[in-house]
């Protein structure tokens, strides 16, 4: 089957090709180029890319741009890389001392980073692509058939940025982006076998598919998704910041329309405060309306999803739960007494539940739970987050930041997974 080549050799092409091997070979030669650059040079370059996107006020990045810019800010990148790489980013350039009495350490690239990006949040792929480049790995990216145009447009900006040490066009040559039919197992196998690391963003189906593909014995797999997220508010926080918390949660629900693994589908509100779960639901409804009108307007909804929303609203309503929604399908808040965690409906559909005892949440938390967005007092964070995350939950950001990419993600330091540690004696 033919592959659609979208980006290769620093050019947007969009043409059918049959020979993936040639592209893979070309990318292999880029390893040497990346190896010659220092990590400081790369950090400087990506900060300039972020500034370029900001200057261009790129619409392509949309709502994700702010998160990307913050991530690529020079000091943040240095900090994130440093934390992930045992405290010294120079390990990416040379053998460095990490405090071991006998050994010096050098982080070498694992080689071609093959990445399968998801349709639900295609722009998240930018984080893994940039992470691979910062750790000096070229990238072969299988884009999603939805959203690939935005991704390619963002990547093309690399070629318009040049720093003292780095020519963006040369960096862009280290990335190839392709579209491959889901059923084209042969070409997916070729991709998989060429990988030093395989990074998969997406739902259950794609993760299972990639797991079935053959790979090199020392290839490192990084799976982002499929995961479920929710939120928790204690009564003191609710009493102190009722409107602010509703507003922040409305943002978490509206960014990515809940299609990200980190998007909350349900929020637990502690009982015993001045405000009830129903009052919070009503305020959340107001805030969702405001966010949708001013900050994050909703795209058109497909009919299948609209029917799912209407079905679920009716179902909750018939079970006696309070459904708060506009006349259309823009957003939905349900104040529910049903047991358990509701399956995600997406499309700005959030369930609010009251909770007496946070211990009840422990039974929900396994490895499929990713983000617990929290509004907890410091005391409650100390008291609860340790025990709530024993069996699952990878991050507990404050409300309003649930969907912001950060390192580590999904319980792992991606930078660390993209390199292999080489040692020598002092």
């Amino acid at each position: 089957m033919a592959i659609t080549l979208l980006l290769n050799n620093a050019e947007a092409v969009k043409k059918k090709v049959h020979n993936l091997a040639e592209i893979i070979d070309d990318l292999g030669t880029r390893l040497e180029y990346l190896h010659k650059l220092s990590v400081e040079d790369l950090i400087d370059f990506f900060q300039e890319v972020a500034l370029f996107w900001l200057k261009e006020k790129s619409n392509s990045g949309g709502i994700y741009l702010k998160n990307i810019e913050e991530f690529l800010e020079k000091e943040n990148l240095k900090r994130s890389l440093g934390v992930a790489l045992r405290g010294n980013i120079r390990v990416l350039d040379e053998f460095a001392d990490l405090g071991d009495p006998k050994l010096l350490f050098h982080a070498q690239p694992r080689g071609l980073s093959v990445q399968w990006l998801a349709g639900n949040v295609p722009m998240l792929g930018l984080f893994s692509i940039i992470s691979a480049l910062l750790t000096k790995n070229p990238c072969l990216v299988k884009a999603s058939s939805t959203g690939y145009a935005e991704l390619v447009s963002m990547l093309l900006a690399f070629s318009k940025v040049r720093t003292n040490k780095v020519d963006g066009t040369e960096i862009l040559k280290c990335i190839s982006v392709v579209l491959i039919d889901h059923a084209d197992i042969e070409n997916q196998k070729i991709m998989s076998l060429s990988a030093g690391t395989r990074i998969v963003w997406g739902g259950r189906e794609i993760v299972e598919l990639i797991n079935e593909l053959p790979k090199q014995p020392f290839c490192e797999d990084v799976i982002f998704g499929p995961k479920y997220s929710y939120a928790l508010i204690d009564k003191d926080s609710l009493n102190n910041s009722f409107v602010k918390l509703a507003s922040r949660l409305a943002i978490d629900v509206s960014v990515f329309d809940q299609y990200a693994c980190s998007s909350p589908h349900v929020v637990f509100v502690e009982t015993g405060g001045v405000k009830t779960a129903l009052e919070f639901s009503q305020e959340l409804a107001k805030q969702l309306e405001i966010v949708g009108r001013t900050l994050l307007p909703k795209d058109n909804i497909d009919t299948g999803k609209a029917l799912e929303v209407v079905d679920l609203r009716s179902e909750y309503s018939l079970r006696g739960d309070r459904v708060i929604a506009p006349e259309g399908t823009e957003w939905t808040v349900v104040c529910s007494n049903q047991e358990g965690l509701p399956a995600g409906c997406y499309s700005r559909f959030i369930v609010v539940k009251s909770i007496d005892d946070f211990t009840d949440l422990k039974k929900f938390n396994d490895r499929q739970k990713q983000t617990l967005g929290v509004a907890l007092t410091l005391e409650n964070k100390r008291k609860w987050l340790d025990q709530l995350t024993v069996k699952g939950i990878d991050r507990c950001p404050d409300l309003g930041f649930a969907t912001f990419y950060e390192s580590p993600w999904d319980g792992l330091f991606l930078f660390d997974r993209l390199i292999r540690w080489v040692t020598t004696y002092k």
Partner: protein
Amino acid sequence: MLIDEKPFSLLQAEKDKLFKEAIAEAAQWHYEQNAECRRLYDSQDFDPNKDFELEDLPYFPVSVFKKFDLLSVPQEDIVKTLFSSSTTGLPSKIFIDNKTAEMQAKAIRQILIDFLGSARRTFIIFDSPNIVKSIGGNLNSRGTAIRGILPFAREVFFILDDDLNLNLESLRGIEKSLETNDSLCFFGFTWLLFSIYTKNKDNRLVREVFKNIADREKILLHIGGWKKLSDVAVSKADFNAAMGDFLSLNQHDVIDMYGMTEQLGTIYPDCSRGYKHVSLYSEIIIRDPKTLGSVVDGKIGIIELLSFIPHSYPGIALLSEDLGRVVGVDDCLCGRKGKYFVFEKRSEEAELRGCGDALAI
């Protein structure tokens, strides 16, 4: 009462007032008698006792009948329970009392008379005879539909066996017993008809029988939706051509009937111009997927069907899973009055899945 009127006899403006009165009465009944309906109306601050526009009447999505047993009469009044065909999981469960059954029968009879005429026909049914047998008062959707058309039959022949394969012996028996001036009506479910066609299109003996009985006035009525056929990329035109060829029919005599088990009685056969007409017993609203408000005529949206007929269950306003568009009002060249529309397709499943489906693992 509207149910006593001929189905396409009033202009839309004449119908509107009468239909609104009938649906308001039905809404008041269900609000009083059905707790779930009351919850739905209350949740939308809708008072059925106040004047309202049809568009404002709260509707149930058809899927709720898969998950809830919804009754507006005591259980002991239920005379039969209908089960919808389920292409995706659970079937809908519809509880029917005598009053609903009578009105359904009346509606379907009057609509079919309008299309077929009142003279009885010989029905050749592409199904097994056992499909119309009710088991413990339960009847599936195919059995229900077939029972609905039986009053129009002078004689009935079932030509499939229990494994839904063509019974050649039954087919040959028809050939022998038909009178020369019999009017024929072939009847079956769309997907089943196409399956029989696919299996037998090259069977010389089968084609011979259909050819031999072809010299009579005849039509093909089919019902049951297009989902299974659209999954294998068979269009309405493909289907009509295939069946026309297989049964030696004029393609214009292949009539698709739209309708749903959840609102049985109000059916929508194609007219000679290829449109579906809304009778006096029901109404259609096309809704925009995003705003859920009604759209202008001609624009495609989700089909909502309203009917005052359901008495034993709150199915008077149902949001279907189908897409369609209103073509016009009162001016179809076939001569029928009222709104007419086309069914476009069954709604696809939601295009995008997110990571939150992790709970389904």
